[in-house]
């Protein structure tokens, strides 16, 4: 089975702006998506817009990532391309004073794989916002 990879209209300029190694690695990742589908994605994401969209993140080069959405008829849509560094050190700026926050700096490898169904339990949005507010700023 092969997949058709398209790009969201507002993400297209970001794709066109890719240069050098990031551009090469992006092309390689797209090629893998065409042949492997969700198996080529890295981690499952909640779309957090109320939809049941099958959305994943994919790290294709250093801190470069893309968000992909799986649509009908074997279409995979690149919804976003950009740099996202989620490796902040939790042990700075006082965050370590709250013991549980040490977990907040955990690695993405702990996320569910792209092909998995996400946990459908409702998320306490207020607490999710609090976690993000408590996280130390990027270094």
């Amino acid at each position: 089975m092969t997949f058709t990879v398209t790009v969201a209209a507002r993400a297209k300029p970001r794709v066109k702006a890719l240069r050098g190694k990031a551009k090469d690695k992006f092309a390689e990742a797209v090629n893998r998506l065409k042949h492997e589908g969700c198996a080529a994605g890295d981690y499952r994401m909640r779309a957090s817009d109320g939809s049941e969209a099958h959305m994943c993140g994919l790290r294709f080069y250093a801190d470069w990532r893309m968000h992909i959405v799986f649509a009908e008829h074997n279409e995979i849509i690149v919804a976003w391309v950009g740099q996202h560094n989620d490796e902040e050190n939790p042990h700075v700026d006082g965050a370590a004073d709250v013991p549980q926050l040490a977990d907040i700096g955990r690695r993405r490898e702990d996320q569910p794989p792209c092909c998995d169904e996400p946990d459908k339990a409702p998320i306490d949005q207020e607490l999710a916002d609090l976690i993000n507010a408590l996280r130390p700023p990027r270094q």
Partner: protein
Amino acid sequence: MTRREQRALAAGFITLEDTLHRTEDALQNGSVKQALSELQETQHTVAAMRPATIDVAQAAVALGVSEPTVRAWTRRGLMVLASEQPTMLTFSSVVDLRHRLQRLRETAGDTKRWQSLLAAAADQRELAEPGAREGLADALAGNTEPLILT
């Protein structure tokens, strides 16, 4: 504290003592409804007695963190600064954060819920990157274009 404030505080404590006794009586008599009513009155009394502001040291004790953490969190907007010299925070913002931290700590005790919450928070951070939500909206609406790599 002025004499007037001292009198108001004493009156508040007397009211609290009364309502706590009535709550105890109601519970001993098996009247949960009456006990709840008394507790609500207690909450009103406490609300009227509580100070408008709190200093950093008191906030640190209330939140169970260090003073530098309180200052850092205030800079990040987690609590509301009432005055800078001396540094005072609004009491309500500290109490609100205390409640949310308690809920967060409780959630952390449930591994499955905690992992799910961390994952959702991480996803939301990624979706907060410039253009991410717009791209998702386009993707979900079918507003897509062929991907041509040159």
